[in-house]
């Protein structure tokens, strides 16, 4: 239920996403008396009951903190372990927008996989919509079925099926169910074997959109050929690439300050030399050495760096731990891309079918023109 509408206060039995860090989001069912162990400490479910969604709570020992978040398909996606097959939000949201999936849309999804996209579909199509999702891998089917039920996604029907061989039709009381899909999403190793099976389950009185999701370009070629062969048109493959950016600060280090620093270093070194010279003079040595043909000292014997730091002109805080944005210095806002980007998820091949479109054979015309 919590996936379909917001509530404000956490009650016993509620589903809560415990936000531990950007990398660790732990979904739990709240049960009085239980605890959640994390690397930031142990958190009592009793403390959660009665808290607001969004609240920050402290661990039993009081020094670690987590946030209690409300379920949403996007958080669910983030909470999944990375090794699972996940359609991430940049892909899923674009597919949803481009296929015009909205309240009331009837959607086919195969395979279910981690069910991350299923949750997103279920949210978007609302009560009047319906998602038919198919999973051929049995353990994954069983897990997804249970999750969808626990999450109260009543507009989703999951079927254990190899749609490539078994097709999409669902028997109910001896008859085929009326699926009438307006949109189809195929995340299969060989979508081209499933495409021929779609004709009986898609809407007969409206335009139908399909999106096939394949990592390799050769799969795209086969998919496009199958789509063409089965009457789909407006075929276009696209890639979605998404990046995450981080706000940073860069210190404004002016060259004038660099010059001043060098001047300062030199001044202090000269002073040191002078001191040394004085010492030498005091000891009444011959005294020619320090000035052989050279007005200024060579830099062979620089001051120890620690000393430079302590006493010198240090406009850039060199050697000191400077916090980004420390108001002692001047900064400009900069941005940095996340260090590891997902440079490829899959190719998205879109196509459309409208059973009502009356076709004149364009080949003849082309042949005519070119001939």
């Amino acid at each position, binding site marked *: 239920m919590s996936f379909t509408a917001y509530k404000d206060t956490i009650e016993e039995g509620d589903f809560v996403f415990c936000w531990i860090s950007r990398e660790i989001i732990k979904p739990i069912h709240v049960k009085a008396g239980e605890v959640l162990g994390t690397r930031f400490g142990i958190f009592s479910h009793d403390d959660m009951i009665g808290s607001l*969604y969004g*609240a920050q709570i402290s661990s039993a020992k009081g020094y670690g903190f987590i946030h209690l978040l409300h379920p949403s398909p996007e958080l669910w996606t983030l909470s999944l372990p990375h090794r699972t097959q996940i359609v991430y939000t940049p892909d899923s949201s674009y597919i949803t927008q481009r296929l015009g999936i909205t309240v009331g849309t009837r959607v086919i999804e195969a395979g279910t996989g981690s069910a991350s996209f299923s949750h997103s579909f279920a949210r978007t199509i609302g009560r009047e919509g319906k998602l038919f999702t198919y999973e051929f891998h049995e353990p994954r089917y069983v897990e997804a079925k249970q999750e969808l039920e626990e999450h109260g996604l009543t507009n989703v029907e999951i079927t254990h099926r190899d749609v490539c061989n078994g097709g999409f039709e669902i028997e109910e009381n001896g008859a085929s169910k009326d699926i009438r899909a307006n949109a189809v999403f195929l995340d299969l190793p060989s979508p081209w074997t499933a495409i021929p099976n779609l004709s009986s389950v898609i809407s007969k009185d409206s*335009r139908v959109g399909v999106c096939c999701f394949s990592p390799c370009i050769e799969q795209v070629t086969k998919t496009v050929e199958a789509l063409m062969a089965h009457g789909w048109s407006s075929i276009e493959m696209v890639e979605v690439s998404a990046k995450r950016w981080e706000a940073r600060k860069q210190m404004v280090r002016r060259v004038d300050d660099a010059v001043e620093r060098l001047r300062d270093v030199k001044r202090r070194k000269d002073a040191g030399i002078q001191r040394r010279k004085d010492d030498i003079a005091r000891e009444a040595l011959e005294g020619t050495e320090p000035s052989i043909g050279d007005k200024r000292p060579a830099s062979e014997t620089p001051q120890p760096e620690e000393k430079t730091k302590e006493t010198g002109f240090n406009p850039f805080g060199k050697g000191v731990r400077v916090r980004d944005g420390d108001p002692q210095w001047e900064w400009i806002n900069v941005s940095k891309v996340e260090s590891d980007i997902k440079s490829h998820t899959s190719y998205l091949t879109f196509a459309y079918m409208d059973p009502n479109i009356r076709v004149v054979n364009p080949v003849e015309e082309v042949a005519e*023109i070119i001939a």
Partner: protein
Amino acid sequence: DKPTQLITRGQCVVVRLPSELTKMVVLGQGKLVNLGKFGTFCSDEVVGYPFGQSFEILEDNKVKPIGALLQTHDEPEDAEYDNATDELIRNLASSENNQQIINIGTKIQKMTTAEIEELKETGGAGVGKQIIEKIIASHDAFDKKTVFSQEKYLKRKQQKYLRRFTIDYAGPSQVLQFYYQKDPSRVLDMSEESLGMMMNLANVRQGGKYLLVDETGGVVLYAMMERMRGEGMIVVAHENEHPNHSVMAHSNYSDELIDSVVKPINWLQFFDPEEEKIGWTDFPQDIIDGMTGSKRQQYYRRKRRATDVNHAINLVESGNFDALIVATTLHMPSLVEKVLEKVGGSRPMVFYSQFKETLVQTQHVMAKDLRVLAPTIFETRVRPYQTIPGRIHPVMSMRGFGGYLLWATRVFPKEGITAVGRGI
């Protein structure tokens, strides 16, 4: 409910032309639609067909339905497709053919512009096809070209002369594309993928109650409406006397439905609610009955306005919005601080900007605000391909704009906590 499957009289639709440009058109009864050089058709002719249908313009503003907008070898029914592909590959494999190709230019095209204009004026069915045939016939080098370049040439000519069009549903994506093509700055350079991602990140759905700032002329508003289909509430904060939702005119939603969902409020009303609430007392019925027609109308108009303004102000005062969605050129860092109290616990906040720099500034501010969890800047970009087997490659050039998103979650910090280890 508004029709989304079949083309209906009186509806606003998108007309897609062979040139890949689009037009927004209302299909008034008997109304003629002028597509410039692509011809003119009567609205009535297309009513009843499903969206996505293509047509060819015949004589007398009539049309006939056709299979596709452009004639290419990638038509589904093309029995010769495989042969063409084979031939292409053979051509690619041998460089000899390409050796024959010479530059296509006006120099080698013998048909004059005057001749083309003349043909166009004689008009009628298949005029585009006739022009193309003549051009090809008069093109010395056409038979020397490879299939590959013949097709490119054909496509270009078709885009220029074929009297064809397609009718598409005027959904938010289509309306966005229409404005984006005309002038991207009107929609803050927003791409379809940014719009879609905003909708998902903000968890927009039936029955939600949202706070929106929208400077795209209403594209974001329309996308939200479409994902709510009349159920829920959108409070739209704006900086003028009236919000600019001109895009909603293409949405085919009734004014009643729009008014029941969309609640505009300006920033003065937003930040100074007590001063801006409109005091209102109903007049006794006998006084209303005694009013002249125009006065009574005025009375009701004012009553309505007072109710609306007060309602919007009350919605903002009670806060607890299910999402904050912002697409504005206002200075976001200062806006965020003032508005985020209105957002419910654990609800998403999504900010759109043409410029990443704006969001970077905002993220810096958010990173110090304990009421905000995990602010994250996203850039999403779609790259379309030429999707013809044997010739697959990304399109050679495209618009570079698209915008950036900042996503964050509203949280309630425990008192006395510092920012350390908050997972920002």
